[in-house]
């Protein structure tokens, strides 16, 4: 009788633990309260803001235009284009970028938008994989991401994505590199303050892939994260590394509710 009770209590404890675990960072909970969320563009100067606001002056649209061409161009041995299956991106891709990174059952991992496009290209089009930061992958990502412009970031962090999310959060909160700084120290605790000539942003990725004036090119969020790690003299995981994807997922959860701006313009 007593043994049965103990077993019952521990089962209850596990059940409660599971409920609490799931509630730790549910979709409702947030790192930053919704009214305090500020896109990186609000920290930028008026010239950069104007450049992003007008599609005719935003250089990111050079990549969007190539992306549209690639979307409709057959590739690989399957002889299919993206449009062969997905049709008009303006309707079929609406909201897709806002939901990434997300867990993909076939791949068995969490994928960011670049990985998802690359995967589709290899698996469905049977074409050669596109390298991270290649003009082709950036163009396709920019074109797909544009279709979600204005929609709020909304990623799933429960279920199969949970482990990646927790790893991303741990990475964000851990100190890295020779400067021994965590992402959170700048972007959580000190955003809005100055770091030399820069105003520290909240560190959201909602404008990526973005045209960065420093790069003189469009670049992915992973490139931006690597640049940040370089800045604090930390080891940079290679492009496409799971650590970066995990971090992207955590950042997307952190930015949930912010409208997508891709292709954005940043300093």
């Amino acid at each position, binding site marked *: 009788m007593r043994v049965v009770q103990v077993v019952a209590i521990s089962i209850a404890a596990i059940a409660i633990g599971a409920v609490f675990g799931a509630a730790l960072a549910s979709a409702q909970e947030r790192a930053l309260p919704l009214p305090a969320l500020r896109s990186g563009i609000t920290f930028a100067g008026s010239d950069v803001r104007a450049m992003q606001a007008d599609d*005719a*002056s935003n*250089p990111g*649209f*050079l990549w969007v*235009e*190539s992306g549209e*061409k690639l979307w409709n161009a057959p590739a690989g041995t399957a002889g299919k284009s993206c449009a062969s299956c997905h049709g008009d991106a303006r309707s079929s891709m609406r909201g897709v970028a806002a939901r990434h990174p997300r867990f993909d059952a076939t791949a068995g991992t969490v994928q960011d938008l670049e990985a998802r496009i690359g995967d589709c290209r290899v698996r469905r089009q049977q074409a050669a994989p596109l390298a991270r930061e290649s*003009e082709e992958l950036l*163009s396709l990502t920019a074109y797909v991401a544009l279709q979600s412009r204005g929609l709020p970031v909304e990623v799933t962090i429960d279920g199969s994505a949970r482990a990646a999310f927790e790893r991303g959060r741990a990475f964000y909160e851990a100190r890295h590199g020779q400067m021994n700084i965590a992402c959170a120290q700048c972007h959580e605790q000190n955003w809005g303050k100055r770091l030399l000539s820069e105003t520290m942003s909240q560190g959201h990725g909602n404008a990526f892939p973005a045209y960065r*004036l420093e790069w*003189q*090119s469009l670049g992915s969020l992973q490139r931006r994260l690597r640049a940040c790690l370089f800045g604090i003299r930390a080891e940079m995981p290679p492009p496409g590394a799971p650590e970066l994807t995990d971090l992207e997922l955590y950042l997307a959860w952190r930015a949930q509710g912010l409208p997508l701006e891709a292709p954005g313009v940043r300093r």
Partner: protein
Amino acid sequence: MPDARITVPPSVARGKPFEVRIIVRHPMETGYRTDESGKSIPRNVIRTFTCRYNGDVVFSARMSSGIAANPYLRFFVTAKDSGQLAFEWVDDNGVRGSDSAAVTVV
């Protein structure tokens, strides 16, 4: 890869200035940078840029390594008749780029 992104109004009034905007895709390599092995990357910037309207030069620019990648140019043109804006540019490697846009005068 498209060479440029041109923005002109869908239709323009006769004799009234209208805005022409163009972003040219070009790395505008300054010549001051080195690659990963320390070797100097040769300069490759757009040297001359010309815009013709129905054959007449209406705008031209000489550029140098002080201009950022993917140069953005904005200028005003007045048209008497409908026609074609033809853009042409040449870089240090002698590579010519060109693009055009139709202008409808109403």
